[in-house]
């Protein structure tokens, strides 16, 4: 299967600290790939490299066959930062209408996307008045608009109630079913089981790159939290 993301010896140095030390991995297309690891292990920096917004990247990052950050990729890659990046003084619908025009998405996509993230009842609400979780979903919605082939989502489920989390993971699975590749970061291990494949990170390095079942098998454990601990200790 063609790789959606190929990382070769990707390294980033910020100030006098190595944030990423030479990561190599291949992310297959059409899967939900979890990027897991403790806070501060370099997940966000790696995602920034893939989206092409990180400066001073060494090594090679190839996304959908092109060098990361290539202008052609701007309509193919959707990126949702950890902090919601939407206009607080506009309504949910106004935000989406603006981003839809930039992405050349049809007007009908606006309401369909609002519905997909479960914000239909708040479409006319000003974003700054929404709760944190609702704001995060508004931010996610803007990234879904242009039907990107790759979605890079930085901790999209933080602060959501279990029902919503379940719904979003179902949405991610459905998107992957249509051929979209999703790279989803999280620092909670119980979300790892919902991924087709896992990238586990610790202190700027990859410690695992495999399917959840294979990881459990290899570490001889029954839950992913234990598997992670086993990998760190070995």
């Amino acid at each position, binding site marked *: 299967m063609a790789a959606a993301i190929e990382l070769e010896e990707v390294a980033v140095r*910020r100030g006098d600290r190595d944030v990423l030390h030479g990561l190599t991995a291949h992310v297959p297309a059409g899967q939900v790939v979890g990027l897991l690891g403790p806070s501060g292990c370099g997940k966000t920096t790696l995602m920034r490299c893939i*989206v*092409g*917004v*990180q*400066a*001073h990247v060494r090594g090679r990052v190839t996304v959908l066959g092109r060098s990361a*950050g290539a*202008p052609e990729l*701007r*309509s193919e*890659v959707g*990126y949702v*930062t950890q*902090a*919601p*990046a*939407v*206009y*607080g*003084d*506009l309504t949910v619908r*106004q935000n989406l209408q*603006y*981003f839809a*025009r*930039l*992405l*050349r998405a049809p007007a009908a996509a606006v309401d369909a996307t609002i519905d997909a993230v479960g914000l239909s009842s708040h479409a006319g609400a*000003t974003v700054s008045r929404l709760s944190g979780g609702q704001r995060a979903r508004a931010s996610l919605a*803007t990234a879904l608009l242009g039907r990107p082939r790759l979605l890079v989502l930085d901790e999209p489920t933080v602060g959501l109630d279990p029902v919503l989390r379940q719904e979003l993971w179902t949405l991610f699975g459905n998107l992957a079913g249509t051929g979209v590749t999703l790279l989803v970061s999280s620092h909670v291990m119980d979300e790892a089981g919902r991924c087709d494949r896992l990238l586990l990170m610790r202190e700027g390095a990859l410690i695992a790159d495999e399917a959840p079942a294979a990881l459990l098998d290899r570490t001889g454990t029954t839950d992913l939290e234990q598997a992670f601990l086993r990998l760190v200790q070995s």
Partner: protein
Amino acid sequence: MNALATARRVLLQLRADPRTIALLLVVPCVLISLLAWVFDGSPGTFDRIGPVLLAVFPLVTMFVVTSVTTLRERTTGTLERLLTLPIRKLDILLGYALAFAVVALAQTALVSTLALGILDLHVQGSPALLVLVALLSALLGNTLGLLGSAFAATEFQAVQFLPAFVLPQLLVCGLFVPRPMMARPLQLFSNACPLTYVVDAMQGVVATTEASAVTGDLLVIAAFILGSVALGALTLRRRTP
């Protein structure tokens, strides 16, 4: 079209803040009325200073409004998101310029109607030229504010750039002391300040009916606008550390 979409978005954001709109439109009117009243005894002075203020208001207000809005866009992550989308940097800058030009036009139309129609300000040149100078001044404030926001980390700093940036220019622009009477270093400094040309153009509009008398000034202002747009575009980085 991305520039138009961006302008529309910026105006929608502004519409959500009616108090700011009121301040942008009412404060210049109050100030110019106050000035007319202060110089009630010497109409000649009001005729000399009034038009200059008509040009300074848009520069000052647009500088503050643009530097704060673009700083907000930088700090809330929306700018970073925009730069990952298929939009050219120039479209972002043009969008802002267009949106605030609309506001500046409303502001200038209101203040100059008040000044010329009710407060009895006398101007030799055409009112259209006066509005043109005020608009260019607004655009200049716009682009300088955008550039300034790149050097501010907080909204506090952005607001402080106004006195740091505009007051020195106002002191040497020839409003308080004619430029030929200033010390040589001050003259050189004022030659380098964009506000000098705005004020000079406005004084030209006051003194003469000849549009050609202010063409030189208008060209210099346009050059400053283009220069700060180019520098402003450089501060919009798609890749950040």
